[in-house]
């Protein structure tokens, strides 16, 4: 396809361009440009999804060379779903961020350039079909994310950024070593070229590469026990940043892990490895939820909730590995649905959290009294997002849980059912810990200020989307199936 308006390359070029322009425009500038451009990106992502549904997965040869000499981009249903999620989360958050930084200017100077590069990195990562190119997108993503964590300055955020930087660099280092081993074995880094070459009897170097790359991704996705860097990083950044990081950045590395597992390294996967991933996911769910419950800072509670919710994503691996195709399909659908639902809900939750902190002037759960009366829409958004995280119907989180529970029972792995149910109850416990406080009347001496309307409505839009996903999720699953027909 040689159309100038082809959405696929523009999804990468556009955010790179506006990110750079926002930098040239100067400190704090570029918000309006960003909102317009992200809206356009959303339209492009929708157009791309439409193309995929009509005519199947697409391969795009950058520069016209084609793999293995050049770099290929590839768009299938899974990539399109992630692209849609990215733009759908980014647009309300961009609106939110404009209001947020107007009310709380710390860190606003370079927010827009960083966000532009972050979105470019995400879109590029989802579309890449080249292992080395993915390395570059991972670094772009990692540095943008670290930069965003540090933008507000201060002891806690800088410490968190430092820790996060080491984690993400180590993760990419492991990935690059894997790429080096793969190139050294086969002489190519193109997924399309490599996939037919890798089979069950692959050399030790390939197994090592698979293990290293996966480990690197787990570190970057903050799967238990690699979650140590996440809560301070996500809990310390300004609210729009926390939302972007929790909703999207960790999903990108999960997406790569999923792709490697299901496609490139599928012949090497074993039930034992899949169960190990599931056990780590289960541990994340329980440990993250319990720690969320013990937090006294609102943002840290939400950040630990992310640690827990990441665990649900990894339950998909045991449920989709070496089981009947129908079971695997519904597990994959459930896992991806969870990624999307959590993305929307967690963005809404961090956004609502940010509004509450702006309104009360402090990040303290015990001082939330009066929020319910003064910011009903914000609290309602928090509650709706909580419904999705708890997996109650009708919500995207419920659809995800339904599909995962179904495949767990079908494949006889009832222990994951127990984990999911207990996790859901723990989630309810920490969500209601916040709601209960916010319902109480304002304590004497506390203040609860109004916040700009855009803050309230953008958070609500995200929360509502996470609920509507549960009612109208079928087209998303249809899109997901593009390029996966057996």
């Amino acid at each position, binding site marked *: 396809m040689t159309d100038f308006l082809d959405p696929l390359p523009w999804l990468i070029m556009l955010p790179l361009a506006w990110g750079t322009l926002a930098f040239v425009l100067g400190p704090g500038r570029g918000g309006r440009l960003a909102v317009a451009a992200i809206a356009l990106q959303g339209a492009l992502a929708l157009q791309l999804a439409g193309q995929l549904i009509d005519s199947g997965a697409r391969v795009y040869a950058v520069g016209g060379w084609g793999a293995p000499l050049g770099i290929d981009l590839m768009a299938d249903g899974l990539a399109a779903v992630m692209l849609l999620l990215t733009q759908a989360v980014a647009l309300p958050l961009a609106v939110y961020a404009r209001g947020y930084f107007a009310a709380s200017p710390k860190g606003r100077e370079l927010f827009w350039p960083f966000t532009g590069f972050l979105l470019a990195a995400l879109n590029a990562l989802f579309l890449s079909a080249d292992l080395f190119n993915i390395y570059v997108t991972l670094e772009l993503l990692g540095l943008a994310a670290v930069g965003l964590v540090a933008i507000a300055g201060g002891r806690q955020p800088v*410490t*968190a950024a*430092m*820790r996060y930087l080491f984690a993400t660099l180590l993760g990419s*280092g492991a990935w690059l070593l894997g790429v080096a081993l793969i*190139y050294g074995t086969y002489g190519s880094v193109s997924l399309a070229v490599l996939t037919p070459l890798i089979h069950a009897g692959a050399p030790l170097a390939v197994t090592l590469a698979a293990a290293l790359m996966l480990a690197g991704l787990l570190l970057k996705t903050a799967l238990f026990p690699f979650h140590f860097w996440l809560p301070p990083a996500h809990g310390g950044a300004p609210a729009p940043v926390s939302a972007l990081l929790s909703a999207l950045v960790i999903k990108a590395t999960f997406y790569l892990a999923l792709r490697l597992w299901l496609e490139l390294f599928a012949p090497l996967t074993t039930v034992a490895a899949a169960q190990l991933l599931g056990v780590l996911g289960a541990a994340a769910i329980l440990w993250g939820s319990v720690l969320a419950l013990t937090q006294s*800072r609102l943002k840290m509670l939400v950040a630990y909730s992310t640690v827990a919710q990441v665990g649900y994503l990894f339950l998909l691996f045991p449920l989709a590995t070496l089981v009947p195709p129908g079971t695997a399909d519904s597990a994959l659908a459930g896992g991806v649905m969870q990624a999307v639902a959590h993305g929307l809900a967690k963005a809404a939750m961090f956004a609502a959290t940010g509004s509450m902190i702006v309104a009360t002037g402090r990040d303290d759960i015990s001082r939330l009294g009066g929020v319910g009366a003064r910011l009903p829409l914000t609290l309602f958004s928090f509650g709706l997002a909580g419904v999705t995280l708890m997996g109650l119907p009708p919500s995207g989180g419920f659809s995800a849980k339904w599909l995962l529970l179904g495949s767990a029972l079908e494949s006889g792995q009832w222990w994951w059912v127990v984990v999911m149910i207990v996790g859901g109850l723990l989630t309810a416990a920490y969500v209601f810990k916040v709601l209960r406080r916010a319902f109480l009347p304002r304590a004497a001496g506390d203040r609860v200020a109004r916040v700009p309307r855009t803050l309230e409505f953008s958070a609500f839009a995200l929360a509502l989307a996470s609920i509507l996903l549960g009612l109208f999720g079928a087209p998303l699953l249809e899109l997901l199936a593009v390029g996966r027909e057996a």
Partner: protein
Amino acid sequence: MSAALLYALAGAALFAIGLAGLLLQPHLLRKILAFNILGSGVFLILVGLGQRDGTIDPVPQAMVLTGIVVAIAATALALALARQLLDLTGQMRLPEDRPDAEPADD
């Protein structure tokens, strides 16, 4: 064994040394150095293994050039963070206590 493979083997050793350093050294500057050693190890493996059959391969060489620039960028950011941390805490190491236990600084 070709010379290129020897480079790759040396790269494996460097990667392991860098990894150990990154995990074990508490001093931030040493951690950053360790990360660079780790990266150099990977670059050696990439170039070395890519040319293990004796032919010169420009593709991994170009990749390594890209990788070096990325590593420079990451190192610069890491150094800036480390220096800032020194300013803020007076220490060149990450605090070991639970970070969420710290008070929010406003």
